């Protein structure tokens, strides 16, 4: 059993107890998992941002700013 990687705990936004089942993974495997999770989150982020930008293209330029502010983007 390996100690859980703190960054992995942060990436999954769970308590260490909730992720205890991941302690069977060695240090290197936890690091690889962290890399894959970060990559999946970045891909999702990229898709959402691209879709938002595309949606904003349909809206008159003048009101895009207030809409971004309204939705917090």
């Amino acid at each position, binding site marked *: 059993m390996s100690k859980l990687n703190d960054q992995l705990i942060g990436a999954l936004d769970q308590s260490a107890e909730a992720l205890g089942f991941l302690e069977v993974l060695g240090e290197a495997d936890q690091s690889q998992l962290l890399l894959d999770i970060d990559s999946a989150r970045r891909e999702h982020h990229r898709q959402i941002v691209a879709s938002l930008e*595309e949606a904003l293209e349909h809206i008159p330029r003048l009101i895009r700013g207030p809409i971004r502010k309204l*939705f917090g983007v």
Partner: protein
Amino acid sequence: MDRHTEIRRLAQVLHKPADALGYLDKLDVEGLHRLRLILQNRIIDEFAHLFERMAASGKIAPDSLSALLCRKVFGPTLTANMSYFTPVTKAVKLLKHFDADFLTEVSRHIVPERAQAMLQGIPVDMMREVTRNLLAAGEYPVMGGFTDHMPETKVVALMEEIENPVDSLRVSTYTQNKARIARITLGFDEDYLSELIHAAFSSDELIEEVGLITAEMDAADQQRMARLTDRLDKAYRKRARRMADSLGTTERLQAYFDA
């Protein structure tokens, strides 16, 4: 739960090929499943603040206008993500305004575990064309997830849209609820069952799959599967036995091998 199925599903979430996840070998199937659910929710909830606001802004708009905005402005990715934060009755009403092509695109982005209530509410006839579209695009992972989380009566109805048994088996490779697939499979007539068994023996992966499905059947039905298998080729069951021995599923298929 089947480990290979879970690895395939997790690989989809991670945008990785399944064979790149060998470093997770020490995790049992329950661990893989928990990891996938945590990760799926984490990814969705990362933008919760945005989608909650977007969904709230559509509360007072008429359904037809909200649906139009989804189709013409937000697009499928944002619509799928908003749906988790939209009251189910409203979400189902909106879906009814979508055409099959748009609904197919939305389906590709839906996490079925988070959309179970919506999947219950969506009329099955709307899903028929979506099923055909997903099938044509080879979206087996999406279909496998829906098969797990849609009401069984709807799944049975949608299975009618899958003519090729290889496609049924491919969907099953991404479906965790093999007992459900077994029940549905037993509803097929003997001609289709024979085609399915014949198709299964075209590749090792599909032999494994039909084995996992058969393992969920009772002894009488396993014996029926054995008779149908022998009718096609007596050598098939020997192949299946070797596969089951290597996967450790022989005991669960005892009636099939003893027949």
